[in-house]
């Protein structure tokens, strides 16, 4: 990471600490915002956060590694979380899974080399009556079929083409 990037990240975290307050209860919201903006929480971000909140970096790491929506692995701009719980399973989750893998050329748990898409499993997203269901970042898609996977991915890809700046992409998601 470039020195200036580090400085920007540190300043960003400082802003978040100012916004949420310098206390342990702010930890999860701060990490959520870092993840949303940078699509990863690397060890440098964890160290800066720990420093500013006055706790040990290992404590931050233990929280990051615990929650499914945090995690220290870099993720794509679009994180696709397919629900694998029983109702979605019975509604045909497996075929949607295979089509996602085929269309993106990666397996679940991986990110495309261009850093645009990540495939992950979700444990029940509360759409059991309309399965198979998946989340693309914060948006929910229900009754997904292998055919509609293509349309969902195309919609994401169009966002890359039309809006070069990150801000708009996040907004569209």
């Amino acid at each position, binding site marked *: 990471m470039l020195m200036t990037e580090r400085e920007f990240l540190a300043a960003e975290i400082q802003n978040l600490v100012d916004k949420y307050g310098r*206390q*342990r*209860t*702010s*930890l*999860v*919201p701060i*990490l*959520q915002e870092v993840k949303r903006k940078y699509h990863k929480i690397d060890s440098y971000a964890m160290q800066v956060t720990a420093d500013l909140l006055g706790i040990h970096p290992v404590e931050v790491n*233990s*929280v990051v590694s*615990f*929650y*499914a*929506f*945090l995690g220290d692995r870099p993720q794509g701009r679009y994180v696709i*979380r397919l629900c*694998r*719980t*029983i*109702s979605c*399973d*019975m509604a045909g989750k497996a075929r949607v899974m295979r089509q996602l893998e085929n269309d993106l050329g990666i397996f679940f748990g991986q990110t495309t080399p261009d850093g645009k898409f990540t495939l992950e499993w*979700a*444990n*029940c*997203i*509360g*759409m*059991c*009556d*309309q*399965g198979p269901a998946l*989340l693309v970042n*914060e*948006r*929910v898609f229900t009754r997904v079929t292998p055919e509609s996977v293509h349309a969902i991915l195309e919609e994401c890809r169009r966002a890359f083409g039309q809006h070069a700046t990150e801000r708009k992409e996040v907004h569209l998601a």
Partner: protein
Amino acid sequence: MSQIPTFSHMPPDIGLQRALGRTPAEIVQEITASGLKGRGGAGFSTGTKWALAAEAPSDQKFILCNADEGEPGTFKDRVILQEHADLVFEGMTIAALAVGAKEGILFLRGEYTYLRAHLEAVLQQRRSRHLLGEDILGFQPGFDIRIFMGAGAYICGEETGLIECLEGFRGEPRNRPPYPVHQGFLDRPSVVNNVETLAWAACILQKGAAWFRKVGTEMSTGIKIFSISGDCERPGVFEFPMGITVKELLRNVGGENARAVQIGGASGQCIPASQFDRAIAFEDIPTGGSVIVFGPQRDMLDVIENFLGFFADESCGQCTPCRLGNRKLLEGVKMLKAGTCSMAYLNELCALGETMMIASKCGLGQSSPCAFLSVVRNFREELMGRAHPLVHA
């Protein structure tokens, strides 16, 4: 059933106005008299919980709404938050009046982030109507609610795991006692209630305890919101009185030909067709509202493999029976599917399941073997001696 007005017929804020005219003790008394039990599934008396928090001496108390709906097959809270958010926030405000809290937190699961904008708008509207904020309709010292987003962990639905997450820790459940009503968020007395419980509390203050008791059974009063999914014609969210039989419920949703029904989500019981006359109520089959219907074509081993995979993934890992037990049970199910499990080992696995239910620290490990044990008990004849894939393929 149809004569009893439910959520959809409840104008908001009348309950809160009635609560403002009463003393905290009277509010708690009304809730206790209604017999309302926690709708998240544990079924603890809401009146008792509020009374304990009201008695706890502290200058700072919290009302925490548990909207971390992660149980497989459950989606009623999503619908309640979408359509009746006012009732939920009203219930939280009434709870605050009853116990003397000034701050409320809605713990919303990360998967429901798309609901947040709507909920923030409802909160803002309530503030502008003086139903939240510094003074509530002239009543000091006021009460306000903020939203905290979960970060994707099923275990945070457990009340002390939820509190750990709020405090910025891993969502590992605490030893109890002390209970949250005595030492909860920031070690202050905290009431943790499910979304549905709080909405019913608002309705009870509006209509009175006697109205609520008219429906349901002696031990399980009132109406329950069910989320029904799986092999049935009309999956969705339904309101049924407590004490409804499985058979009646299936008739309503078009799932009469089911071979089994999972009640209470992945941590609940798997009921075979021969027991469909049993009642869904805390005294027979307890539930948080999840009903998953399995049609005649389903393999019950696939079902428990899915459930145990879920628990092995979502166990917080803090205590050994749950961390390792769920993995061992999952391994066992895979052996059964492959036809390589001896009867002696299956019996060992059942003993392990029973040990987990006694020795685990929190509700996750205490209830995760339920589905496994009930399938082994009720579908035993299908489990043994399956074709070995390597030999017979």
